[in-house]
């Protein structure tokens, strides 16, 4: 296999709340290849967003990050700030869940785009304005020249997400991390944005990590999925395997809990219980208390991630 573009090795995150230190990520191993689209799914609090915020050093001072984030020969964890700033937006760009509040309300769209162009492409003045127009055009915003003078509140949520994508493209990154990019948007607009992301990837060969709680969104827009639960990756497999032959009971449970739009209606099978608190994880497998197939051994130690087939990893002793 080729050298991966980005490689997370044993990534951990601890939050120091002042009273106690709570581990939110328990050693994430994840490779993203050049041009690959990887999905990261899981329920709220599973650590899917934190993983990439930690990788880029965006978690703030209360977080302690351990492990390695390899980008080429560099390790981003513990790297000098200047180096990180070069990577952010330049090699790895991010877009977020709520586009309208991810843009600064007091600055014009053009200024915010120009900032990224100056940082990563050394463009200024007229050449920056021309490139900004081209980028807005690229993400399907009509009348780009005029939109540059608009403020975020003058655009719809879908339009603002297009602006965020344009801003991410400004640095010509190798990897785009899209953190729930369509969760705040309406269904028909979600479809437009996901289509746009796919199209851009086809054109530019950019890799993408798509973080979502929606298995459907991930299924249709990525090649490979990592399922996360309570700060760990529990299953990592190609799309066809995850949806055709999932191995981890949690993945199976998620799929069984999801209603279909077609075919006969079947009763939903919910996963019993609730996600454990990060500060109060069970000693063994975090999913064991909710798992129908758990045995005594499951409660002894967290299962290690095992490769059960080429490109298919599972963290379950019962798989």
């Amino acid at each position: 296999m080729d050298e991966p573009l980005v490689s997370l090795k044993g990534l951990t995150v601890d939050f120091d709340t002042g009273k106690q230190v709570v581990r939110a990520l328990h050693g994430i191993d994840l490779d993203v290849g050049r041009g690959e689209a990887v999905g990261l799914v899981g329920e709220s609090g599973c650590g899917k967003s934190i993983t990439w915020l930690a990788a880029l050093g965006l978690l703030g001072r209360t977080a302690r990050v351990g492990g390695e984030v390899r980008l080429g020969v560099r390790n981003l964890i513990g790297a000098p700030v200047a180096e990180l700033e070069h990577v952010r937006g330049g090699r790895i760009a991010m877009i977020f869940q709520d586009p309208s509040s991810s843009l600064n309300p007091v600055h014009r769209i053009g200024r915010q785009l120009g900032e990224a162009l100056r940082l990563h492409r050394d463009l200024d003045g007229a050449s920056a304005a021309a490139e900004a127009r081209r980028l807005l055009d690229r993400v399907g915003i009509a009348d780009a020249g005029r939109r540059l003078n608009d403020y975020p509140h003058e655009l719809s949520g879908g339009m603002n997400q297009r602006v965020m994508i344009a801003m991410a493209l400004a640095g010509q990154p190798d990897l785009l991390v899209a953190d729930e990019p369509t969760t705040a948007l309406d269904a028909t607009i979600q479809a437009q944005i996901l289509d746009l992301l796919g199209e851009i990837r086809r054109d530019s060969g950019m890799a993408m990590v798509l973080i979502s709680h929606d298995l459907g969104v991930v299924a249709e827009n990525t090649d490979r999925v990592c399922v996360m639960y309570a700060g760990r990756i529990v299953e990592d497999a190609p799309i066809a395997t995850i949806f055709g032959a999932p191995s981890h009971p949690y993945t199976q449970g998620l799929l069984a809990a999801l209603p279909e739009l077609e075919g006969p209606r079947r009763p939903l099978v919910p996963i019993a219980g609730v996600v454990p608190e990060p500060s109060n994880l069970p000693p063994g497998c975090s999913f064991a208390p909710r798992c129908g197939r758990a045995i005594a051994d499951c409660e002894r130690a967290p299962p290690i991630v095992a490769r059960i087939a080429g490109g298919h990893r599972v963290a379950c002793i019962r798989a």
Partner: protein
Amino acid sequence: MLRYLAGRLLRALLTIFLVITFAFFVLHASGDPALMILSADAPPEAVKAFRAAWGLDRPLWEQYAAYIFHALQGDLGNSMRDGRPALQLVLERVPMTLAITVPAFALKLAIGIPAGIYAALHRNSLADRLTMMLSVAGFTVPSFVLALVLVLVFAVKLGWLPSAGSDTAASAILPIVTLGVAGAAILARFTRSAMLEVLGQPYIRAASAKGLSWRRVVTEHALPNAAIPTTTIVGFMVGTLIAGAVVVESVFAWPGIGRLLVSSVANRDLAVVQVILLLVAATMVTANIIVDFVYGWIDPRMRSRGLVGGR
């Protein structure tokens, strides 16, 4: 825009009018100027003559109508104490008051805003906690207590500065510091919470994710947004430039508006009190209008509020 301005101006004038009216009736109901100015054991004839001379023997509403009538023509009455026009008397004192309130205002901004920003950026650090402790102390200690402490230390013990009066430029220092400290404390607290609110917004994280240095994230993205709520409190401080120094002026025997107000109220020198209140109301109202325009200038959302009225 013109309609908006006209509306604002009209409301401002109405506010000022209400203040004067209220003050007029409260003052006239609260004591007899004749007894205050002539002393309580003045002969009844003298009191009667005084009352007739100032129109105090006429019905209250008539006095009020006359006052408003003259005021509209620019005549705000004369001081009962020395007979000079009240407006002139008050305006003479304005520079003295501004001489301490303006530097104090600058001091508030120069200390309060940077301290608040620093505390927010270093949240929960020792410096933050210290700043906030000082800030709480700064605005909970009454200004006359602070004034007395400062006098005790710098005038009595060290002998560096005069304890009262307005003979030298150095006399202004203690009043300015006393005024500045409390304001700076309030402003620091306000700025800190405004900053913390802004720093928690998604666009701050997004700006960092773009590759901007933290310094630029703070200066270009956080500060302009934090300025919006801070404007309110700064505007309020502008409104107190004229009348915010009553206590401090009294403690330091500083011959400004504040002291004039205190002595005029004590003497029931009605015209002078009215003029001062008018001036105070006018400053407050003007400050408010300025704040509104500054809002529009720094917050584009205020400029173009689209749909008004909800779903």
